[in-house]
């Protein structure tokens, strides 16, 4: 199915970019006519994924870019995030702690948990040139 909208922007891989990345995602979601709720979920998933790229994939490497592509067609909205940092497959997500009492509650793992909860498909690949590609797909209901 051919895309109706396709836009790509490369952002500096720093936390300062997160607001601009959200804006980019929201614009695509609105153009696609997603609901408020779905738009927020998309924004949350992308923010968590980009935060992780900045924090972990580029950790001690010289920060480069995150290339963000939004594709919209009648069936879905797809966000692709590309980076040149350390590869990481989000399938290897740790189980988050959602139930412990306050004193014992650990908040690690919520980022990946949100990504999986908010998106219908989450795919990771590392290309031959070392580019990591994270593909997040939200079906339109």
């Amino acid at each position: 199915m051919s895309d109706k909208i396709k836009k790509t922007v490369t952002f500096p891989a720093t936390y300062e970019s997160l607001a601009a990345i959200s804006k980019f995602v929201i614009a695509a979601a609105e153009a696609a006519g997603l609901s408020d709720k779905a738009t927020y979920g998309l924004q949350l998933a992308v923010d968590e994924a980009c935060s992780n790229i900045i924090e972990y994939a580029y950790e001690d490497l010289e920060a480069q870019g995150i290339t963000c592509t939004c594709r919209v067609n009648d069936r879905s909205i797809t966000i692709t995030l590309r980076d040149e940092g350390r590869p990481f497959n989000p399938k290897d997500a740790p189980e988050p702690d959602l139930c412990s009492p306050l004193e014992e509650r650990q908040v690690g793992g919520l980022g990946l948990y949100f990504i999986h909860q908010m998106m219908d498909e989450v795919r990771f690949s590392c290309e031959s040139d070392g580019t990591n590609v994270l593909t997040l797909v939200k079906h339109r209901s």
Partner: protein
Amino acid sequence: MDYTLEEFKHCDLLSVSGRIDSQTAPELAEALDDILDQGRYNIVLDLNDVLFISSAGLRVLINTQKQCKRLNRGEVVLARVPERIYEAMDLAGFIPLFEIFDDKVHAVGYF
């Protein structure tokens, strides 16, 4: 992210607006730590104008709640949590950890 702080007799009201993400969560943590550093542990966090909270923001909320509740010296309560943010907190299992009020008056009156 922006915030304003109002000090009441039995609690502090921190009203936050904008985005709480990995970029801004440390600023929120600092604002909350400043309150705790004054020996004040009853905090109303008004989230009405918050547009977005990521897990980095949730981490700040829970760390502050842990510090406040330690030794039974106080508590963080939330006021006017926007629907989308409530849903994310619910997914994350945060709802049992915070008293949540529909308006600031009831939140301040709780203390």
